[in-house]
C-alpha cells in the first residue's frame, strides 16, 4: 500500500480492534479508501492490534502497522473528555474492554459512525445513538471486484464462524450485485 491522503469528502469512521484484525487477516484494509471512508483508530485499538510484540506470532499485525504508517489508518489519541467518557463506560460495563469503550467514546463525541463487530458493543452504540457499520458492509462497499468480494465474504465467514444462512444471504447479495 502506498502513501495515502484521504480527501475531505471521505466519511470519518471510528474502528474497533476486532474488525481491524479481521480486515488485516483478509488482506482487505484497502476497503476504507475504496469506500471513501477515513478510518480513525483510537490509540488503545492500535496498541492492541499492532504492538510490536505481536508481530512475530501474528503477521497480520504487520499489515496494520504498515497501513497506519502509510496513512490508510489514522491513529488518534482520545481527548481528555473522550478518555473520561471511556473510563466511565468501562466502569459501568465491565463486560467490555476499556479499548472498546474508547472507540465508543471517540465515535460519540465526534459524531461519526463506528465499525464494531461485538454484539454488546453494538448494543451500547445504539443506545448512545452511534451509527454502526459491520465488516461485511465494509467488504461490500470497498470491494469493487465481485469475485474478490465473494472470496472475502467466504473468508470472513470462516474467520468468525458465520452461520451458513448468513453466508448464503451475503453470497446471494454478491450474485445480485453481479447481475446489475
Amino acid at each position, binding site marked *: 500500500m502506498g502513501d495515502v491522503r484521504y480527501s475531505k469528502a471521505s466519511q470519518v469512521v471510528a474502528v474497533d*480492534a*476486532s474488525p481491524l*484484525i*479481521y480486515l488485516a487477516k483478509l488482506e482487505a484494509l484497502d476497503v476504507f479508501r475504496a469506500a471513501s471512508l477515513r478510518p480513525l483508530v483510537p490509540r488503545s485499538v492500535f496498541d*492492541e*492490534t499492532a504492538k510490536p510484540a*505481536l508481530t512475530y*506470532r*501474528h503477521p*497480520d*499485525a504487520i499489515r496494520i502497522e504498515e497501513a497506519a504508517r502509510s496513512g490508510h489508518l489514522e491513529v488518534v489519541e482520545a481527548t481528555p473528555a473522550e478518555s473520561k467518557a471511556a473510563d466511565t463506560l468501562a466502569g459501568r460495563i*465491565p*463486560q*467490555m*474492554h476499556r*479499548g*472498546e469503550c474508547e472507540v465508543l467514546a471517540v465515535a460519540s463525541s465526534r459524531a461519526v459512525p463506528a465499525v464494531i*463487530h*461485538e*454484539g*454488546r*458493543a*453494538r448494543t451500547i452504540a445504539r443506545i448512545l445513538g452511534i451509527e*454502526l457499520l*459491520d465488516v*461485511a*458492509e465494509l467488504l*461490500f*462497499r470497498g470491494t469493487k471486484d465481485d469475485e474478490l468480494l465473494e472470496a472475502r465474504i467466504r473468508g470472513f465467514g*470462516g*474467520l*468468525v*464462524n*458465520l*452461520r451458513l*444462512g*448468513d453466508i*448464503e*444471504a*451475503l453470497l*446471494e*447479495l454478491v*450474485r*445480485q*450485485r453481479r*447481475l*446489475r
Partner: protein
Amino acid sequence: MKERPQVNIRLDRRLLDELDRLAALEQVDRSDMARRLLDTGMTSYRGDMAMREYRKGNVSAWRAAEMAGVSLYEMLDRIREEGIPYQLDPEVLERLGARVGPAPAVRETSAPYRGAADAETGIAELREQFRPDRITTLFVGESSPAGGTHFYRANSNLFRATREAFALAFGEDVGPDGPRFLHYFRDQGCWLVDLADRSVNQLPPRERDQAVAEGITRMAQLIGETSPDRIVTVKATIADAVREAGIRAGFAGEVVELPFPVRQWRAAYVRQLAAVLGAESTTVFHHSKSL
C-alpha cells in the same frame, strides 16, 4: 529475590503422589513442581473461564482476552477454533439488500420501496408467479419490507427463517438455493401475502395501523376466495387483524400465530414453524419424507 509466602494446603493422597511423581520426572522438588502446576493450571483456568463467559455472551472477545491474559489475536483464533458462531446483525443484511438492490428479474422501481405500493414495485407481480393452484397454508405478513428485500426475492429475514424452518422439518433438500425453495414453497400449497399493500415499517405508527386496518377487508376477500386449510401469521401484532379477516370470511380453520423472525424472536419463529410443519407433514405437505 521474589517474595514467597508459605502456604499450607491439604491434598488428597492421590494428588500428592502424582505431584511427587511429576517432580521426580522433572527432577525438581515438590514445591517447585507445585508452583509450576499452579501457574500453568491458573493460566489454563483463566482461559477456560474467559471462553465460557464469552460463549455465554457475558463478555466481549477483547475483554475475554484480557481475562485470559492473552492477546486479542489469540482470543479470536480460539473463538474460531472452538466454533462459536457469529450471527450477523439482521439490520446489516437489510441495509446491504437496499444498497445492492434487487436482481433485475422482475420489473420494478428502484429499491428501497419507501412506502411504494407492491403493484408499483413489482412485488405483486412476483408474488403472483409463486401463487399455488390450491392454497393449503396462507402465510400472512404485515407488509413488504421498506429496505428493498422481500420473501419472494429470497433475500429477506423472513425468507431465510422460513426456509430454515422447512429444512428443520423436512430436511435440507427442501431447496438448495433461494429460487428452488420458493418453488418448493409454492408446490406445497404455501403462499405469502401481506395485510398492507405497501411497505409500512417506515411509516408513523398511526399511518401504519391505518394501512394494516385497511388491509382487513382485502384479506377477508382473499381468504374467502382461496379457502386455505390454515393461516399462519408471521408477526404477532397482526394476528388480531388476520383473525378479524378470517371471521369476516367465515374461515373455520386453524390460525397459527408466529413472532416475526428477527433478533431474539428468530429462533422461536423457526422452532415453532418447524413444529407446525412437522406435525402436519402427513396431511398437508407432500414432501417425499412424509409419504
